[in-house]
């Protein structure tokens, strides 16, 4: 789990929380003492395994979380793309996404630190769900901040969070998505930091969060690397993972950083790339590909912003990628040419969602579908650095997205989408645009 023993990769830039020009600690003074306390706890418990923290974490990840997750050969995709496609099945982790690796680690760490309340933001609701589960598991009270737009488009996860006994606090500012949810959770923390731990959901925020979250998520690539050796007898030529804040991404890349493995971070291309300066919106969430350096939510990183430095509203069909920033470490690796950022738009992600579901019997999260969308783009003849053996991180499962996909699919011409007439005839297309359109006919 921890880096120092895994040779070579210890030469990290994280000691001062800087990744090249990125990272740092841009937060209100009131939070700084807690951030210093967290840095200390990260070094002692997580890096040095004091009081057996890491041992307990691993045990709980196995017993409660179901680790290790499988490495699976995707037979149909391998045939389709004429190369070996392997899947790292984080969708099979408890909660249905990679998010539990981090949430369980941080809630446990909060307990070691003597905190007695947990707060978190969530976009897709997966991190909220994972945090609510971890908090219930470890008997801690928990509140989840979630934008109202996301509450509507990720309803199943709202049910799951509430069912696990956590509160959901709706955030109504701005567009009501992940950016606003993070801001609001930081505001809560500024008032409650003395007894509360903020379980941030991705490799974003002030140091030590990006390092802490990456360390917890590295289990993905540590397992995958071992499994690839054992199962395939070699390492993959490339790893492909979607990137919102970038936690599944860095988790899937980390153990391969010193290997000759190409790393692809697939961002949400939304409806088009670029920032609309006049309207102050970016119809995408492609901060690695198109963003510029700036400061947001405690870190210097690549951002979607206008010429003045106002953060613009991002867009993606997938709530978990819909964010104007990205983890500072990932931004740094992109600048250094160690990670290749690519973008997949809403349509291609939806197609990939249907394709993976039909071809492999795996319904992916819409976030994850972006990674598979990239495989398809490449197969259409673009430049190809993927090589013969590709590892795709299946960051999460798509049950939470079924309503959204139904509505979004009804709005578009997608060649692979199943027709839902059977539902329509039975009057079972509940709510949403699909239904409204139907009644108009």
């Amino acid at each position: 789990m921890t880096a120092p023993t895994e040779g070579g990769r210890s030469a990290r830039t994280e000691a001062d929380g800087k990744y090249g020009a990125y990272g740092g600690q841009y937060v209100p003074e009131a939070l700084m003492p807690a951030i210093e306390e967290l840095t200390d706890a990260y070094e002692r418990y997580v890096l040095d395994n004091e009081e057996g923290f890491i041992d307990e974490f691993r045990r709980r990840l196995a017993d409660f979380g179901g680790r290790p997750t499988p490495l699976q050969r995707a037979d149909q995709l391998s045939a389709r793309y004429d190369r070996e496609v392997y899947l790292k099945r984080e969708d099979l982790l408890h909660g249905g996404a990679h998010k539990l690796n981090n949430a369980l680690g941080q809630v446990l760490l909060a307990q070691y630190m003597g905190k007695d309340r947990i707060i978190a933001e969530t976009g897709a609701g997966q991190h909220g769900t994972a945090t609510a589960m971890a908090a219930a598991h470890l008997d801690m009270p928990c509140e989840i901040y979630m934008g109202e737009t996301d509450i509507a488009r990720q309803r199943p996860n709202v049910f799951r969070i509430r069912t696990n006994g956590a509160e959901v606090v709706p955030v109504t500012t701005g567009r009501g998505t992940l950016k606003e949810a993070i801001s609001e959770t930081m505001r809560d923390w500024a008032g409650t930091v003395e007894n509360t731990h903020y379980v941030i959901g991705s490799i974003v925020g002030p140091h030590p969060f990006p390092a802490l979250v990456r360390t917890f998520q590295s289990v993905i690539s540590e397992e995958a690397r071992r499994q690839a050796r054992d199962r395939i007898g070699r390492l993959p030529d490339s790893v492909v993972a979607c990137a919102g804040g970038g936690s599944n991404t860095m988790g899937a890349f980390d153990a391969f950083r010193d290997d000759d493995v190409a790393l692809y971070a697939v961002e949400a291309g939304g409806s088009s790339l670029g920032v609309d300066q006049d309207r102050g919106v970016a119809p995408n969430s492609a901060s690695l590909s198109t963003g510029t350096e700036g400061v947001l939510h405690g870190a210097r990183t690549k951002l979607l912003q206008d010429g003045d430095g106002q953060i613009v509203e991002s867009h993606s069909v997938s709530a978990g990628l819909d964010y104007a920033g990205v983890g500072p470490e990932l931004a740094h690796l992109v600048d250094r040419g160690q990670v290749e950022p690519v973008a997949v738009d809403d349509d291609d992600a939806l197609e990939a969602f249907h394709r993976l579901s039909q071809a492999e019997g795996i319904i992916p999260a819409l976030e994850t579908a972006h990674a598979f969308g990239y495989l398809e783009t490449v197969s259409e003849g673009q430049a190809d650095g993927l090589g013969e053996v590709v590892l795709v991180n299946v960051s999460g499962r798509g049950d939470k997205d079924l309503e959204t996909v139904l509505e979004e699919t009804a709005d578009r011409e997608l060649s692979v989408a199943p027709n839902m007439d059977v539902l329509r005839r039975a009057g079972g297309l509940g709510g949403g645009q699909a239904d409204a359109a139907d009644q108009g006919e």
Partner: protein
Amino acid sequence: MTVGLTETFEEPAFVPYLVAGDPGYEDSLAYVETLADAADVIELGLPFSEPIAEGPTIQEAIVRALEEGMTPERYLAFVRELSVETPIVCMTYYNLLYQYGDEPGPRPFVRAAARAGIEGFVVPDLPVEEADPLRAACDEFGLDLIFIVAPTTEGARLARIRELVSGYVYVQARMGTTGAREDVSGRTAASLARIDGWSVPKAVGFGIKTGEHAERIVRAGADGIIVGSALVEIVASGEDRAAVTDRIATKAAELKRGALAGDE
């Protein structure tokens, strides 16, 4: 380091905050000028889209100002246009300072701010860890850099802030975000005690709403009081310019009177 702002704290100071451009450019000019009578320093907010240290009242003011087209460039024009003698301190978030002008970093904005007549900065998302470039730019152009001391700030952090701060120190009266409260925090006296020997004046903010609060805070040892949300609430009432101006003047006078009474 300059001592420009320090001199304005000879008697208990009233330091009001408003968001520039809230609810629109012209109204806002009138409101800020109204404050000038009672105010010793004016903290003028340059609105940023992600104000993580603000409570709902100021967040909403920022949204109004942004929707009416406030930008860093217009903010500087706004400051130039103000006909007030009262020193103006720019309160904003780091990304706006960082992005302005053609070289990355805070220097171009600090230079432009100095030319527009701004005398200092408060940047709530910039702890001392990241403040060296801004401190250097403020030194270069003769501006003060105010830091916030929170109820949780202790030990080595206090020492570091003491080294970098100039003008006045912003003592955060309570944990949490900005917003007017019905009571004043019991933590204020303890916070003031921790910075007792500092040479810069101590201005207390976060939650102050009435003249009576102001009086108590000055009595507890503050050299000044900072009031934002209680004034922004008046702007937010949506009444016409004359009515808002009137109420701001009354509130400002009440707060200044309270501060002075605390010194008796």
